């Protein structure tokens, strides 16, 4: 707590800290914190193994007596022992802070109830996040309350690991600082403070070295820009002015640090079809594995990752980039290229000079990035669509090379103390001659700072428990260089320390508080009145005008194309590419239940990663979804569950990273009090890092041999449990029907750059089923007050799934675990249906449809409920009355959208204290045997009603913002009052793209969908 007490001079957060400090010290609280996750009892009963059966039967008989006693989960509350000045209990407060991933900051606003942060949303004022958020940002709050986090420093003794304390650890750090020979292996960060301390360490601590490692990094972009511009540059794209966007293996809308900025920019050119003079962008995606951007693209060209450099060169040649002669000749002209679409792509670019952009993904070699930047300059994108920002610590070598340097130092005995800051090389780094556990073993003093006592921590002498970003002070630069500040929302739950604090112990010979450190190093950026600007910074969450992005492109550095030819190689056979997981990223979120249960946007598989293979390869190998395949890369082989993914390139196998963690044999020693259920990451999915050797890391792909290995594996998919099954008897029956209905449910209009409203409307209505005019035989109810409604623009939905987690966080939706998901019992109130469109299973179009309660005015669910537990209110909301529900499940049966969710087990039984802290107090926890579903965030509707009443005003459009709409990076979801003709939702529902799903049933849904536009008419012409 010391770090907190020292913060009292900062009156900004003073009161808040004190109160937290006080209850965080009570033994009751500590006891609660050490209690276990109780949620998993239900999972025991999905296995009908004899052992389970007997266990359950025994339990049920033993407890049969007290059945009546155990309906409602008991909840302990954590009271404010003393109410801080200026804070009303139960009134949420929001603080600006900063979330960093891939050394890029996003500005966030954290909502906090009585000192307990419960939501992380985007900071609307921040130039990058613009109020929206990603699923990982949303889920980070659960990450803080995760009872699986390491709670104290531990160090290894001869008899296993024992708990240490921070004073010892700090002492060790200080001695290390004095004696020198300190090597730091840090997760790359754009923190000004950390970078300054890095410099100090190298300068002041003798024979020290600083290395950085991230398994998923943007090295090739950094090195590529260095090739072309002489120094590393960061391309800051404004997609809202890119009429034509070409993505070469790039996924700017999802797997990109600036995905939020890109998404909102991309969206600006997608919903414009409703304006007077509609314009539409066209996105080309050239990629090997179906990505989120690829799904959103108008034209998608599946190809081998290893062939993309060639295509890049052909494209460059066609767009008039002067290339080294040998390169140009080696690839041949575009005309010669097999695929005519590359020429069309080039024509598109040339036709939109100055309003187009080419992006390369981080799996492409630096030379391709260099080429792409040359192309962008040739096409006049620079300055108009593209700005260039500085890269923090840009001069560092490629991460893999940096690791090599460290390994050599260790072998050379130059490392006395190895300090690892938030990295996990034992799990995610390729072995360099020796495995990393061996290398770390050779270091006299190894120390690891991390949120979890993970694979690396276990081989280190010391593990130090790190603070979660919601618990610490810090700073980082956003994609465009804006300095973003991080302030703690709560005192460290487990007395952890942040990276900067730990480094300060080495360089300053004392552990300063993060608060002081940040103030110290940011001091130069302040005006004369430091306190004044400090307050301003904390209030805004960032320092204005600190973006270092410039409009003018740097001069092109001569001889940039040197490396180009080397990167153009034609590799035969099958290739494997490694992708950061859409939920777990590089594995750091593996212990986060929300993210584990979040279905993958593309495969819809939750709780697992899988080998994504094309339908063609599947029939070659004779495998179906869930069949095991052996993947062998350079002698290392891994058996993995296959998933047949339409649109996957037939020679490429895509695998996600971040699964197959092993962080939980905490049972060793005295820490066994923590049951392994804490480490929900364990044994989930397959550890694909094993296949990702250094060569693969450098090349961005690897040659792989794949064979069916026999045996099957259950993949918990939330949709089309068997999308394609030509081999089964009548297997096509359902598949064909799904194809037919997909056209009705998700309507798509094909058009060109300037869609004609009338034509689009014709296509949209034509897609729907023919049905007579809908008239009810009875006199229908007339709504006099608000008429809440929602519209969802399929043209904007990329399927990124931020809304799903946002809804989960807002509405305290339970995590049910893999087995239950496999049974079809997931609890998500909003699900994103992914439909494939078109006959070509090798390259289908992808449409995502977020589906939640449609709030039908003639709700079919209501009339069948025997106890009237679901009824309509005067504002047209389909209310679900939990405490009246007896659980007949009839409503769910009769719901044509299947958006109701049932508590088959007690999913919220005795939540652990930390879990309770994370709950949203505005929303009831549902008991077992009760139906639940989307409420349009009725708690938000009511609180804004109360707010309007207190302010003695009418409600205005935009007062109410459901969690899903708030989080959506493309603002695809609009919500409002139909009674107000000018409200945004009234306008969107009048759009010529608007249609109601299953309207032919006369259920009169309040939710409208806006048809997707696909700008691919060029293909018909070409």
């Amino acid at each position, binding site marked *: 707590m010391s770090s907190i007490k020292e913060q009292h001079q900062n009156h900004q957060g003073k009161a808040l800290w004190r109160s937290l400090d006080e209850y965080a010290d009570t033994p009751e609280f500590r006891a609660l914190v050490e209690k276990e996750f109780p949620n998993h*009892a239900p999972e025991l009963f999905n296995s009908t193994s004899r052992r389970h*059966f007997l266990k359950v039967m025994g339990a049920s*008989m033993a407890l049969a007596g007290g059945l009546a006693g155990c309906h409602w989960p008991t909840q302990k509350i954590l009271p404010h022992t003393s109410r801080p000045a200026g804070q009303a209990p139960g009134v949420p407060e929001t603080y600006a802070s900063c979330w960093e991933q891939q050394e890029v900051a996003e500005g966030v606003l954290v909502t906090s109830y009585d000192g307990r942060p419960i939501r992380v949303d985007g900071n609307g004022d921040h130039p990058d996040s613009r109020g929206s958020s990603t699923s990982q940002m949303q889920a980070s709050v659960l990450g803080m309350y995760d009872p699986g986090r390491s709670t104290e420093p531990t160090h290894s003794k001869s008899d296993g690991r024992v708990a240490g304390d921070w004073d010892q650890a700090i002492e060790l750090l200080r001695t290390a600082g004095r004696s020198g020979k300190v090597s730091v292996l840090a997760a790359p960060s754009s923190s000004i403070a950390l970078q300054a301390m890095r410099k100090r360490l190298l300068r002041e601590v003798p024979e020290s070295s600083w290395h950085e490692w991230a398994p998923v990094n943007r090295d090739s972009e950094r090195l590529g820009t260095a090739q072309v511009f002489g120094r590393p540059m960061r391309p800051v794209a404004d997609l809202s002015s890119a009429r034509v966007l070409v993505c070469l293996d790039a996924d700017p809308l999802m797997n990109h640090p600036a995905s939020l900025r890109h998404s909102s920019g991309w969206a600006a050119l997608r919903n414009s079809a409703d304006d007077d003079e509609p314009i539409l962008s066209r996105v080309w995606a050239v990629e090997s594995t179906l990505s989120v951007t690829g799904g959103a693209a108008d034209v998608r060209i599946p190809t081998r990752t290893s062939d993309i450099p060639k295509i890049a060169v052909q494209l460059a040649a066609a767009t008039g980039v002067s290339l080294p002669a040998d390169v140009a000749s080696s690839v041949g002209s575009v005309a010669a290229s097999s695929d005519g679409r590359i020429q069309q792509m080039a024509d598109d670019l040339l036709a939109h000079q100055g309003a187009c952009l080419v992006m390369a993904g981080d799996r492409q070699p630096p030379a391709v990035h260099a080429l792409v930047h040359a192309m962008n300059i040739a096409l006049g994108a620079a300055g108009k669509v593209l700005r260039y920002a500085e890269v923090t610590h840009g001069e560092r070598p490629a991460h893999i090379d940096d690791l090599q340097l460290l390994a050599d130092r260790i072998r050379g005995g130059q490392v006395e103390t190895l300090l690892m800051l938030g990295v996990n090389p034992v799990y995610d780094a390729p072995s360099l001659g020796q495995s990393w556990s061996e290398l770390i073993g050779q270091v006299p003093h190894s120390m690891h700072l991390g949120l979890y006592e993970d694979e690396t921590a276990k081989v280190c002498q010391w593990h130090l428990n790190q603070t979660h970003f919601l618990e610490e002070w810090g700073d980082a630069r956003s994609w465009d260089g804006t300095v973003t500040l991080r302030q703690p929302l709560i005192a460290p739950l487990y007395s952890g320390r942040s990276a900067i604090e730990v480094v300060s112990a080495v360089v300053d010979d004392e552990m300063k508080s993060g608060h002081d450190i940040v103030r110290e190093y940011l001091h130069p950026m302040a005006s004369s009145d430091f306190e004044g600007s400090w307050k301003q910074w904390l209030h805004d969450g960032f320092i204005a005008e600190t973006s270092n992005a410039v409009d003018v492109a740097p001069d092109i550095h001569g001889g940039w194309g040197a490396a180009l030819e080397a990167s153009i190689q034609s590799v035969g056979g099958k290739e494997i590419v490694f992708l950061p997981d859409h939920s777990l990223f590089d594995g750091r979120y593996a212990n986060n239940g929300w993210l584990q249960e979040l279905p993958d946007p593309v495969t819809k598989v939750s709780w697992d990663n899988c080998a994504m293979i094309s339908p063609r390869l599947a029939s070659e190998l004779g495998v179906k979804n869930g069949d095991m395949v052996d993947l062998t890369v350079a002698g290392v082989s891994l058996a993995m569950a296959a998933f047949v993914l339409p649109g996957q390139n037939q020679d490429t196998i895509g695998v996600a990273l971040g699964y197959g963690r092993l962080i939980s044999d905490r049972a060793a020693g005295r820490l066994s009090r923590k049951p392994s259920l804490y480490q929900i990451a364990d044994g989930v999915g397959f550890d694909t890092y094993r296949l990702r050797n250094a060569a693969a890391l450098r090349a961005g792909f690897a040659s792989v041999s794949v064979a069916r290995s026999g045996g099957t594996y259950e993949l918990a998919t939330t949709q*089309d449990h068997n999308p394609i099954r030509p081999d089964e008897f009548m297997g096509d029956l359902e598949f064909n029907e799904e194809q037919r209905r997909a056209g009705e449910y998700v309507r798509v209009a094909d058009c060109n750059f300037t869609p004609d409203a009338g034509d689009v409307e014709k296509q949209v209505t034509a897609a729907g089923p023919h049905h007579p005019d809908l008239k009810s035989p009875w006199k229908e109810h007339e709504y006099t007050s608000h008429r809440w409604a929602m519209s969802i623009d399929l043209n904007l939905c990329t399927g990124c799934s931020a809304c799903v987690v946002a809804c989960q966080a807002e509405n305290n939706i339970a995590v049910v675990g893999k087995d239950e998901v496999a049974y*079809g019992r997931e609890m998500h109130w909003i699900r994103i249906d992914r439909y494939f469109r078109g006959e070509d299973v090798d390259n289908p179009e992808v449409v995502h449809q977020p589906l939640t309660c449609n709030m039908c005015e003639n709700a079919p669910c209501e009339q069948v409920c025997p*106890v009237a537990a679901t009824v309509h209110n005067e504002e047209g909301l389909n209310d679900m009355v939990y405490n009246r529900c007896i659980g007949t499940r009839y409503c769910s049966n009769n719901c*044509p959208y299947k958006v109701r969710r049932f508590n088959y087990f007690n999913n919220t039984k005795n939540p652990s204290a930390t879990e309770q802290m994370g709950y949203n107090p505005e929303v009831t926890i549902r008991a077992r045997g009760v139906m639940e579903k989307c409420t349009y965030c009725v708690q938000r509707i009511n609180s804004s009603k109360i707010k309007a009443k207190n302010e003695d005003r009418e409600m205005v459009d935009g007062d109410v913002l459901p969690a899903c709409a708030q989080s959506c990076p493309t603002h695809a979801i609009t919500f409002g009052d139909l009674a107000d003709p000018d409200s945004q939702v009234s306008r969107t529902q009048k759009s010529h793209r608007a249609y109601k799903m299953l309207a032919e049933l006369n259920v009169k849904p309040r939710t409208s969908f806006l048809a997707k536009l696909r700008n691919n008419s060029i293909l018909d012409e070409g």
Partner: protein
Amino acid sequence: MKRLLEMLSPIVRPELTGGAESPEIDNTAYSPDSRTPLITGDNDNTTITDKVCGIVENKPTLGWWGFFLLAFSVLGLLGVFIPFLIFWGVGTWGVNNPVGWGYAIVNFVFWVGIGHAGTLISAILFLFRQKWRTSINRAAEAMTIFAVICAGMFPGIHVGRAWFAYWMFPLPNQMELWPNFRSPLVWDVFAVGTYFTVSLLFWYMGMIPDLATLRDRAKHTVRKVAYGALSLGWTGSNRQWHVYERSYLLLAALATPLVLSVHSVVSFDFAVSQIPGWHTTIFPPYFVAGAIFSGFAMVMTLLVPARQFFGLKDVITLKHLENMNKIIMLTGLLVGYAYSQEFFMAWYGGVKVEKFAFINRAFGQYAWAYWIMVSCNVLSPQIFWFKKMRTNIWVMFVVSIFVNIGMWFERFVITVTSLANEFTTSAWDYYSPKLADVMILLGAFGLFFTLFALFCRFLPFIAMSEVRGVLAEQAHAKARAHQQPSPESAAKPAAES
């Protein structure tokens, strides 16, 4: 058949049946001039009374004990799995989203259907003056009661919060909350509740004279008191008979529309919803036909062994069995017609989702269930076109088992296949039962057969007073055949002759 009979003959060994033996007499031959006798052998009031009361008065046979203990131990499964279910939640079943209803509702509809034959035999055949009902109506009514008990159990335990199931009744409460009378489930509560009550009254009232017989023959005090109380002091007074018969007739007249309404209402659970495959106007008659079909099959399953064990072959004669087989064949054809009509309407209606629902039923992921249903319900009864077959007790027994299986699968097909693949394709899934589903299904049969075994032991298995009436008529028929009109025949209502 003969060899099968010999093979199975040990089942009816005297020491099992308590020596009750009676010859198999074929009274199914049709002769226009004389009515074939319904009660064979030289039986009169005395022998009938002794025979029927004997079942209750003699020591229980080995066979009875074996049957009872077996049934009772199967019933024990409920004792294990219902607490298990209530304690952990319906997740212990295989139900999921989208298939919210699984075995529980299938079993509910199945058992309600079984009940219908009893009421049909006792009420509708009574109104039609079908004298052959008298030998079987008591057992059939008992079956009805027990089947409805089994059925009633399921809605109670299948809800997520079984301890609040009573909220479905319109009980006054502090919040002044009432059930939603638009819900077919509430209609069920009233329909099944009424059905159980009325069936019970009808059954009990029919038993009063026979209970009086048992009272008057009782030796043991306990029996004297028990049967004395149950028979309400019945003296067989003719003035009482007069009111009694009128009341019985009225109850029959009430039970007839009731039995038709009950399965119609049960079918509303499906028909009123909008799920393709459920939302069908043919359901009420289709369900009623199916109910009678399955009910008669169950009566057959019970009576064929029972008449064997209790030596009642001359009371429950081949003619009775043959008549029931004819009804099984007829209703089997009706059900088959309904199956075909569903497909016709799906095609004729031109609603794509409905068309798919039915094609998917026959050829989709649940095709196996559909074809089990068709072969058991539509094909197997066709064997009854041959008299040789419909008068062979082994054939009829096997067929009745088939029909029971088929009718359970009919409900499974309707409930599960429709839910598994309905509107939103993204939510399509496959339902497969878990251990608890199967065990509770078995347990319900245990309950049913346990109750039936107890009924055989302690209550008059045959409606004696009515059989006596039939005997009297047979006597008079004989008399008329010898052109000796008796004074009684003059007083007989026209409908009788």
